[in-house]
């Protein structure tokens, strides 16, 4: 069956490449895009880092045989059931318009990923397709067949300072791989593991062959049971070479490797009669040695039972004073103690501590989950001279530490279920800011702000390029719906950077305002 008959005219641009003959470079590029376009945060691939965000969403995994297989989908989220075949056309449609056909078993539709252009799409297709069993990628490169035949590997866990006697240890994982190239990626752990890789190498000409073995940490190469290169001990990338006289026929190659901590590397190539340079080992593992994953993972921070969890650290998208709150309702917010406002909201997985909890912890970590909406990084409450006065602005560079004007942060207290009530003051007026989440396929929340004191205040319910009245609610940007419970009529006005939706509040004693925030993906 020709899968190309599914192509629509809009996708015709992709047809020029025969993806069956996709070259390794394209697959390699696709693998990088799979990280950078955040596919990897939800879609688990075999041997890849854990796709934690996908667990809550029940996102489809890309393992086993999935390409060309039929799957049950709904037309629109929660819509009519239908069947769809996983092919290029379906793949492209799923990225361009995720809501069109949603895998039935998923807990939520896929959020629209960052824009994918046609060239990137080709690479992503090549990579994802190569993950499916039963596809036969071309020779050479990242998932190509290597030279090692009858290829077996064993993975060990442990912390060593030099190569242990693996034969006395019990492997945690064994397997056969048809890739034919040794790869540290056989281990799911990136630290404190060891590998034994064995395979047969066909030697066509009798002669002297040279092997270059590079590793971080230690490694050893045995050919026909004899050590040829010994590169043992704890070290950074160290390359050593050795040679062996081999007869024509089959030679048994055995690579032993261990990694304690930090950088990780394994490479092996050989040369000799009739062989210029043949790659026998590599490391495609996402960490150490080479490329780092787009998002640090490995320390997911998960709300417990009915309790919220907080993460106060450098959160990408907030000022250096971000305070993340993950609610068990799968709703997450980032309160910014500079803006004194909620500056990001998202669904699913909350945060991962991996960036800050490993090494010195430099940098800002992005939220883990999906459907991230960034709200304007300015203060929520202000006292204006009049309803026309401009809303106070904050410097919002990644490293700016600019504070809300006329307000002071006072901390928070934890209410039932360790849900924080943030507190800040405007002179003598105390403002308490509380989020009440609501679970569901698309979780939502009500923001409840209580002001105790006196004076005329404004609440900035939304600031965005577009804000439109929609029934009793307001549609803000592409995907947010806000419903206000106000004592006074809200004001929609033109601000410095688009529309602003203000709620005036006259405070005498205690005044509470509520605003409901819902994701509106239609």
């Amino acid at each position, binding site marked *: 069956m020709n899968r190309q008959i599914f192509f629509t005219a809009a996708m015709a641009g992709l047809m020029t490449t025969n993806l069956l003959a996709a070259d390794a470079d394209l697959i390699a590029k696709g693998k990088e895009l799979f990280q950078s376009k955040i596919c990897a945060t939800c879609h688990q691939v075999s041997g890849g880092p854990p796709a934690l965000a996908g667990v809550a969403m029940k996102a489809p995994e890309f393992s086993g045989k999935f390409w060309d297989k039929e799957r049950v989908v709904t037309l629109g989220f929660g819509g009519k059931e239908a069947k769809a075949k996983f092919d290029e056309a379906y793949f492209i449609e799923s990225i361009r318009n995720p809501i069109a056909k949603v895998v039935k078993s998923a807990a939520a539709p896929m959020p629209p990923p960052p824009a994918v252009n046609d060239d990137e799409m080709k690479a992503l297709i090549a990579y994802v397709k190569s993950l499916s069993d039963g596809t036969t990628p071309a020779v050479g490169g990242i998932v190509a067949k290597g030279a090692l035949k009858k290829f077996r590997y064993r993975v060990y866990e442990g912390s060593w300072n030099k190569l242990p006697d693996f034969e006395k240890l019990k492997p945690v994982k064994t397997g056969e791989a048809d890739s034919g190239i040794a790869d540290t990626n056989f281990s799911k752990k990136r630290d404190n593991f060891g590998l034994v890789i064995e395979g047969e190498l066909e030697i066509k000409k009798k002669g002297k062959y040279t092997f270059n073995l590079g590793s971080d940490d230690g490694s050893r190469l045995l050919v026909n049971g004899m050590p040829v290169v010994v590169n043992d001990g704890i070290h950074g990338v160290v390359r050593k070479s050795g040679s062996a006289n081999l007869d024509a026929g089959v030679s048994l190659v055995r690579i032993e490797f261990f990694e304690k901590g930090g950088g990780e590397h394994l490479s092996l190539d050989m040369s000799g009669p009739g062989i210029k340079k043949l790659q026998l080992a590599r490391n495609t593992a996402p960490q150490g040695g080479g490329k780092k994953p787009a998002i640090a993972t490995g320390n997911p921070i998960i709300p417990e039972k009915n309790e919220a*969890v*907080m*993460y*106060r*650290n*450098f959160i990408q998208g907030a000022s*250096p*004073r971000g*305070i993340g709150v993950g609610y068990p309702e799968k709703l997450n917010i980032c309160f910014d*103690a500079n803006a004194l406002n909620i500056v990001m909201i998202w669904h699913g997985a909350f945060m991962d*501590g991996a960036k*800050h*909890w*490993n*090494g*010195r*912890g*430099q*940098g*800002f970590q992005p939220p883990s989950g999906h459907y991230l909406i960034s709200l304007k990084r300015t203060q929520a409450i202000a006292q204006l001279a009049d309803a026309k006065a401009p809303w106070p602005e904050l410097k919002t560079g*990644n*490293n*700016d*530490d600019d504070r809300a004007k006329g307000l002071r*942060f*006072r*901390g*928070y*207290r*934890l209410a039932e279920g*360790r849900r924080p009530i943030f*507190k800040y003051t405007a002179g003598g007026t105390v403002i308490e800011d509380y989020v009440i989440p609501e679970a569901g396929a698309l979780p939502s929340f009500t923001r409840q702000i209580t002001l105790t004191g006196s004076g005329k205040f404004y609440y900035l319910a939304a600031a965005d390029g577009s804000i439109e009245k929609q029934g009793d609610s307001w549609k803000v940007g592409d995907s947010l719906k806000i419903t206000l419970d106000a004592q006074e009529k809200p004001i929609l006005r033109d601000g410095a950077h688009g529309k602003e939706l203000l709620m005036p509040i006259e405070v005498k004693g205690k005044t509470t305002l509520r605003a409901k925030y819902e994701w509106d993906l239609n």
Partner: protein
Amino acid sequence: MKKLTLLAAIMIGYSVQAATPKQEDYYKFTRIPLPQDVVLEAGGIAMLPTGKLVVSTRRGDIYSVSNPLGKAQDMKVKLFARGLHEPLGIHWNDGWLYATQRCEVTRIKDEDGDGRADIFETVSDGWSINGDYHEYAFGSQFDPDGNMWVVLCLTGSFSSNNPYRGWCVRVNKKGEMIPTASGIRSPGGIGLNHLGDVFYSDNQGPWNGSSSLKHLKTGSFQSHPASYRWWDLPLVKKHMGPKPPVTPNSKSRIPKERERVKEYVPPACVLPHAKLGKSTSGFAFANNEKFGPFKNQLLVSDQSLSNVSRVILEKVNGVYQGAAILFMTGFGSGNIPSYYDSSGALFVGGSDRGWGARGGKRFALDRVNWTGKVPFEVHEMKAKHDGFELTFTHEVDPKAAGDVSGYSMKAWTYILQSSYGSPEVDHVTPKVVSAAVAKDKKSVRLKIDGLVKGHVHHLVSGGVRSKDGLPLLHPNAYYTLNEIPKK
């Protein structure tokens, strides 16, 4: 008969030497057992009135340890609070647990008494951060005037990119922040001595030839001029005067620059790099005799070498100075905070994340108790106009202690410079010309030719023996001679 006595003495000497005293004879370590899911990268330690020890972690948690003074198997570690930003320094005061986070000083309370904190009040967030990993903040306990002293690491090693990076500020309970001292580089701990004077440790790097313990005086300058950048802030002007101190010259020496920069306070005690440590961190002191005869001496930790040194300070010509002597080794991880409980227990916690430590564990919390046996040590080392006076924890053998050949001294200093660290330079070899043992045999007065102002004086008392024939457990002492006393 006489011969027999001599023989017996020799035999005793031999038998003693056969069993060389070890640290374990005097101080007993108990490692606090941790549940498997607890990552206790300790950043602060405090004792609650309930008798529970609380430990803050670099990951932002605070754990409580019940029965911390009892047997290890009876201790229970439980979560007390989560979601703080790398709190380094927690202290109990007036019914609140005060925590210094990267971003602010916070006071914390468990109001409903369920064992978990529920109130987190911001006391002061007056300083700035910009997302650099290096912007650590260490907070002290409150001083007698009700101020907490907070030292704020630079942005990295060399620069101050946001207000108050490289400053010491005081925070009072009203939430006011008072700029107090400039010139901070990369602190590793802060605290008070028994007199209420404040000290902090600063690490080897630019303008710091070696790690050291420094005295934080109001208005003082601590060596790294990057902090001058914020002198235009009205709050700085109000509390620190209209102009920053003179900028020290690079490639110079501390005594020389002290003459130019009148606010410059020299390190009270250098913990010589690679000799006593590589990263000086927190300290505590025993406020009683339950930890041996070292009352009020500062027990200063090192993160890299997982050890604790005794720092014995005195004031000469109004300037703090003194000796550092290795005290204990073998802590589990990279020591950061410590806490002394007046029952006689020293708690030292740590983490090796990001820098590595000799201890070997990723994190650990150790308790040290005194066995009641007094080690033979230099008890105190004091500067004299022509040498030093040493006191000992036991009576000495007057012959050995009175023999000048039993002592040797070297002295050196470090380049004061804007680039990273410094080698030891300007080496000299002061000569011990006489050693007079006091009548009570508990001290010796050393006359020394060639003392150098500003140098670290390394005294090796290798020949000294106790009256029982024991050598000093730690024969090396490093005295930072900022001032030579007048006659």
